[in-house]
């Protein structure tokens, strides 16, 4: 038996979570113990409508796109391009040709670092990132800096896990070519003030790439309002399938950028020694793309829009408020990062004297799935002087009762480990 939410005022009221849970077969699965999935920041669960959209492709119009002059290929082409339009609309891009399909956020960022980076970064230039970046938004810039002789600079964070923006004036100079930063920290949940930073970056002539892997799934994102130059995110973190990611870019930039991965589909014409490349997005989608996955992501975006991003954001906020309050009475517990007000649904924590792996291991015994490790953010770990943290993260299908189970599990871990401490 698990405790009911103790506080009536905290009963969930923004989303019909039970109805939502019915869309996710994995959450309805009989198992002992039942799955309590608190790792959506790593990858989200997939609703049936998304799986069905892909199955429909494979079972009724499986064909390669863009070149086939027969019905199922015309159908596949239409659905693939329709998915692109849905995604453009979802982030309010002006045109669907600004949406490039990739495998994941990581590939999207590498594309910019190689293509835009090689054409625009020279020795002595500066690339500005933050210490809270995921490795996927740090390593491509490290390599670019090493290749070109450019310099990486870092925006530091406060103890509370907010960006130290006092530093910004000093860090942003006319040598800064690009600011590459995360919208939402995958470890701390911190929501960064993108619009302000983008404006400041543009004022010195720098471009801005936003790692939106943790924001596009969880809150309304409007690229025109943000005014960012590039935005990257992944399908598998937003109810979509694996194997599909997105790079959004301003059209003039995408047009100027040299090709990156090349091959089938990226061209206008090919001669033995020389080729002319196509317009974006085709220029950047080399070879047979993730057709079923793009269509699946289109279905995921339909699903998220139906539920509503504002509602999802509000729901996660309720879960966060409840969790912060509930967990705060566990002695020896540290939560990293800001107050719920300034973040989305992730809680990184440590419990004195217990390795985060062991926390995750004990929780797993009662079916609670959380993540433990460096979360691909070692520079941030170094900043907090920890090797690892345990992270619980939420999404539209999570409930208050699941947070109670997390709480119970943390207490169990404490019991197992402290009983034995000398």
């Amino acid at each position, binding site marked *: 038996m698990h405790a009911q939410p103790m506080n009536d005022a905290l009963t969930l009221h923004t989303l019909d979570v039970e109805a939502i849970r019915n869309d996710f077969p994995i959450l309805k699965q009989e198992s002992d113990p039942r799955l309590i999935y608190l790792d959506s920041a790593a990858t989200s669960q997939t609703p049936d409508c998304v799986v069905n959209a892909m199955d429909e492709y494979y079972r009724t119009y499986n064909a390669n796109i*863009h070149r*086939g002059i027969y019905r199922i*290929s015309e159908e596949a082409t239409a659905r693939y391009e329709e998915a692109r339009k849905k995604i453009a*609309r979802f982030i*309010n891009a002006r*045109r669907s040709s600004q949406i490039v399909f990739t495998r994941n956020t990581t590939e999207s960022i590498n594309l910019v670092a190689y293509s835009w980076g090689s054409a625009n970064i020279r020795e002595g230039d500066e690339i500005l990132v933050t210490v809270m970046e995921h490795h996927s938004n740090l390593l491509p810039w490290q390599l670019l800096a090493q290749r070109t002789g450019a310099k990486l600079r870092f925006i530091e964070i406060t103890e509370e896990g907010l960006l130290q923006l006092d530093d910004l004036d000093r860090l942003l100079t006319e040598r800064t070519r690009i600011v590459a930063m995360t919208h939402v920290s995958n470890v701390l949940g911190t929501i960064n003030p993108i619009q302000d930073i983008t404006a400041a970056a543009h004022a010195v002539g720098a471009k801005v790439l936003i790692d939106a892997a943790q924001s596009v799934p969880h809150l309304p994102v409007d690229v025109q309002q943000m005014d960012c130059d590039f935005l990257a995110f992944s399908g598998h973190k937003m109810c979509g399938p694996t194997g599909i990611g997105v790079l959004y870019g301003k059209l003039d930039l995408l047009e100027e950028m040299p090709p990156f991965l090349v091959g089938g589909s990226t061209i*206008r*014409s090919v001669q033995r020694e020389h080729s002319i490349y196509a317009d974006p997005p*085709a220029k950047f989608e080399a070879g047979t793309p993730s057709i079923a996955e793009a269509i699946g992501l289109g279905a995921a975006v339909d699903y998220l829009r139906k539920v509503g991003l504002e509602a999802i954001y509000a729901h996660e906020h309720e879960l966060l408020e409840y969790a912060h309050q509930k967990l705060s009475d566990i002695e020896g517990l540290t939560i990293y990062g800001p107050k719920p007000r300034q973040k989305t649904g992730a809680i990184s924590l440590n419990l004195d004297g217990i390795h985060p792996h062991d926390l995750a291991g004990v929780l797993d015994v009662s079916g609670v799935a959380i993540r433990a490790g460096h979360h691909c953010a070692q520079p941030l770990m170094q900043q907090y002087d920890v090797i690892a943290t345990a992270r619980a993260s939420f999404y539209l299908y999570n409930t208050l009762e699941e947070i109670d189970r997390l709480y119970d599990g943390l207490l169990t871990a404490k019991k197992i480990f402290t009983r034995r401490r000398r």
Partner: protein
Amino acid sequence: MNIYEEDILDHYESPSNYGTLEDPDISYEEDNPLCGDKIRMELKVEDGIVADIRFSGHGCTISQAAASMLTEKIKGQPLDEVKKLSKDDILEMLGIPLGPVRLKCGLLALKVLKAGAYGLKGWPGEEDEESGE
């Protein structure tokens, strides 16, 4: 509705305004990167009116018939009419439905015309893709 309608085959077999002009005011050529079809459009413009027009190139029935029909439609008209022509006008002109792949064949002539006359890039119809609720 069959793609190989008599009407379309007629235009393919005996295209109108096929050939080139001497000293054209506008001359532009482009190909469809998906299949290699190529169309060149040449125009004489007098007082803003398309006084004469020719097309040349090679390609499938759809791309060539669409070019032939388009030249008939635009000859003698104000050049500015070209700018207004949309994807749907071409579909109506051809009188058959086209999937997204063959659509590019059908639109190639209009694309060449718009690019030549106004420097417009992108496929006709793409301007409709502006998203927003």
